[in-house]
C-alpha cells in the first residue's frame, strides 16, 4: 500500500467548515444547474420527437412545410388522398386519414374576460385518435362533431397558466366570446399534443372563419412515403407538400436548437463560475497545507499518493453536494411543467438525468482538485518543509 489513509482525506474536510460549506454549495449549484439543463433539453427533445409516429405522413400546403399553423389546404384533400394514395392503414372500414386545423388561439376564462393565454387548438375528427395513438382520453368523452365542445390536454393548464381544476370536465372556456364546454381530458405524454386543446373540425373552422384545413395526416400501412409523394406530384393543382411526420418534428427540433444551446451555455457559464469558486476554495485549502504535504513526501509518500488523497477529499465534498443537489432536483423539479411556444412539456428526472447531474458535480470535484494539488506539489520537498 502506498496511499494515504482514507481517513486523512475525510477528516481534512472538517478542518474548515466554511470551506467545506462553500465546496458543497458550489457542487449543489452545479448539480442543480446541470440536472435542470439536461432535464429541460431532454424533455424538449422527447416532446418533439415523441409527437411523431413513424408511419404518419403530413400533407400540407406547398411552401408551408416549416409550420402547419401557416398552412392552408382544401378540405377535400382528405377524401382525395384517401381515394388515391395506396396503402393507407384502415380499421373497421375507417381509413387513418385525419384532416386537421392547427391554430393558436387566445383563451378566456369568462364570457367577457381577457384571454388568460394562448393555446394550440387542433380541429379534429374522430380519425385523429387513430393517427395519433399517443393520445388517450383520461376523463369524459370525445367532443361531438359540430358541437361547441373541447377536450383538454394534461399540460394545457400549464400552457395557459391556470389551475388544473379550472379546466375540469364540465367547465367552459371562451374563444372570441364563444363558449366551449370541456367534455373530456386527454393525455399524450411526452408529446406537444399534451398541451393542446382539441375541438371538432367544423367548430374550429367556424371559429377561425376558414373553409380549408391546415393539414391532413395519413397513417400508412402497406404504402410508402413514395406513394404519398406520387399523389402530391400528380395533383399539382392542390399545391400540396408531403413530409413524414418524424421529419417535420425533427425540423421543429432543429428550430429550437438555439434555445437548447442557450440553456447549455447558461448552465456551463454558471458551472464555470461554480468551478472557479471551487478552485479558489481548494487553492486556499491546499495552500495552507504545503508543509504538511512536504512532510508526507519526506516520509516517503509519492506525489501520486498526495494527489489521490486531495482528489478524494475534493470528491467527498463534491459528492456530498451532488447528492444534496440531486435530492433538491427530485423534490423541486420532477414533474414540473415548462411552457414553450409549441405548448408545454414536463421535466422528468429519470436515472440518466439525475446521473448526469451527479456526474457533473463529481467532475467539478475532480477538476477542481487537480490544479490546486499540483500547485501544492510544485515546490520541492525541502522548500515545502520550510513553508509556514
Amino acid at each position, binding site marked *: 500500500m502506498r496511499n494515504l489513509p482514507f481517513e486523512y482525506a475525510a477528516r481534512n474536510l472538517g478542518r474548515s467548515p466554511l470551506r467545506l460549506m462553500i465546496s458543497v454549495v458550489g457542487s449543489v449549484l452545479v448539480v442543480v444547474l446541470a440536472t435542470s439543463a439536461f432535464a429541460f433539453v431532454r424533455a424538449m427533445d422527447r416532446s418533439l420527437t415523441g409527437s411523431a409516429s413513424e408511419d404518419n405522413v403530413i400533407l400540407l400546403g406547398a411552401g408551408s412545410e416549416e409550420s402547419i399553423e401557416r398552412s392552408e389546404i382544401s378540405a377535400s384533400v382528405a377524401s382525395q388522398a384517401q381515394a388515391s394514395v395506396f396503402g393507407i392503414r384502415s380499421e373497421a372500414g375507417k381509413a387513418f386519414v385525419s384532416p386537421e386545423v392547427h391554430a393558436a388561439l387566445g383563451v378566456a376564462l369568462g364570457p367577457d374576460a381577457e384571454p388568460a393565454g394562448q393555446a394550440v387548438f387542433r380541429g379534429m375528427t374522430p380519425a385523429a385518435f387513430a393517427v395519433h395513438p399517443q393520445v388517450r382520453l383520461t376523463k369524459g368523452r370525445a367532443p361531438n362533431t359540430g358541437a361547441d365542445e373541447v377536450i383538454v390536454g394534461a399540460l394545457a393548464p400549464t400552457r395557459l397558466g391556470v389551475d388544473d381544476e379550472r379546466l375540469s370536465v364540465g367547465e367552459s372556456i371562451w374563444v372570441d366570446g364563444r363558449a366551449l364546454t370541456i367534455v373530456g381530458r386527454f393525455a399524450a405524454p411526452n408529446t406537444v399534443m399534451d398541451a393542446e386543446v382539441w375541438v371538432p373540425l367544423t367548430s374550429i373552422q367556424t371559429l377561425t372563419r376558414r373553409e380549408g384545413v391546415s393539414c391532413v395526416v395519413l397513417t400508412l400501412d402497406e404504402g410508402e412515403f413514395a406513394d404519398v409523394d406520387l399523389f402530391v406530384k400528380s395533383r399539382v393543382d392542390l399545391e400540396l407538400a408531403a413530409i413524414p411526420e418524424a421529419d417535420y418534428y425533427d425540423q421543429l427540433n432543429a428550430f429550437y436548437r438555439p434555445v437548447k444551446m442557450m440553456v447549455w451555455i447558461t448552465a456551463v457559464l454558471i458551472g464555470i463560475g461554480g468551478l472557479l469558486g471551487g478552485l479558489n476554495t481548494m487553492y486556499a485549502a491546499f495552500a495552507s497545507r504545503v508543509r504538511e504535504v512536504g512532510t508526507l513526501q519526506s516520509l*516517503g509518500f509519492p*506525489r501520486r499518493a498526495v494527489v489521490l488523497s486531495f482528489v478524494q477529499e475534493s470528491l467527498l465534498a463534491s459528492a456530498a453536494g451532488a447528492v444534496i443537489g440531486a435530492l433538491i432536483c427530485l423534490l423541486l423539479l420532477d414533474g414540473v411543467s415548462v411552457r414553450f411556444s409549441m405548448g408545454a412539456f414536463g421535466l422528468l428526472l429519470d436515472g440518466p438525468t439525475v446521473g448526469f447531474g451527479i456526474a457533473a458535480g463529481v467532475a467539478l470535484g475532480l477538476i477542481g482538485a487537480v490544479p490546486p494539488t499540483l500547485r501544492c506539489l510544485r515546490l520541492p520537498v*525541502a522548500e515545502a518543509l520550510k513553508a509556514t
Partner: protein
Amino acid sequence: MPLIECRQLSKTYRKGAGTIKPLDGLDLDIDAGRFLALMGPSGSGKTTLLNLIAGIDRPSEGALTIGGQNIAKLSRSRLAAWRADHVGYVFQLYNLVPVLTAYENVELPLLLHKLTRRERHERVATALSLVGLADRHDHYPRQLSGGQEQRVAIARAIVTDPQIIVADEPTGDLDKPSAHAVMELLCRLNSELNKTLIMVTHDAATAEYADQTLHLDKGRLVEHSVQAAFSGETATTRPEEGAAR
C-alpha cells in the same frame, strides 16, 4: 566502511538572476551508529546537508553514498521509496498531521511497507511505548504538549526501524525540560538501538548530546569537534587535519 560518504558534495539554487551555493564541495564520512551534530550560522548549509542525507533533496554535484548506494542518482520516486526504508525525520515544528491521532501519525510511514494491520499495530505500540506515550495513542496533536508532540514525531521517525534518523532543530520549539527529555530520548535511540543520528542545531548545549559536532560555514566544513561521552571535554580538529569520522 562509513555508512554515509559525501564526495565533493555541492548544492546550487537559483535565486532570481543569480545562484546561491549553500553547500560547496563537501567531503564527509559518517560511520554507522554515530550521533552527529551539525552547527553553523544561518545559510551555512547545515540544513541543506541534512536534507541531502535524508534524501529529500538532491545534490547538484558530487556523490552521496549511503549504505553503498549513491542516492544522488536515484529518480524522484525511487528516492521517495528509499527515504521510506532508510530514514526517519524529526522536524523542529514536529510536523504531525493535525487530523490524525498520535497512533495514526506514527502508523503513517508503515503504510508504505508491506505489513499486516496487526504487524503495524505492534510496531506503533512499541514505538509509542518507547517514547513514553502509549497512553496518548488516541490523542490528536492539538491535545498534546509540544514535548509530547515531538516525542510522537520521534516515534514516527523510528517506527520503520530506519538506519538513519535526521533531526532538524528538534528542540528549537521546546522549553528546557521538554528539550532535555527529547534529547535524552534521541541519545537512547543512538546508544541502545544503535541508530545513526544526524542533528542540526543552533544550540551548543544541545550539540553536546552528540558525540561529534561539525561546524559548517558558507557550505564548507570548518571545524570538527569530538565530545568525550558527555564529559565536557572536546577535541577540535580542522577538516584538512583528518576525515570527519
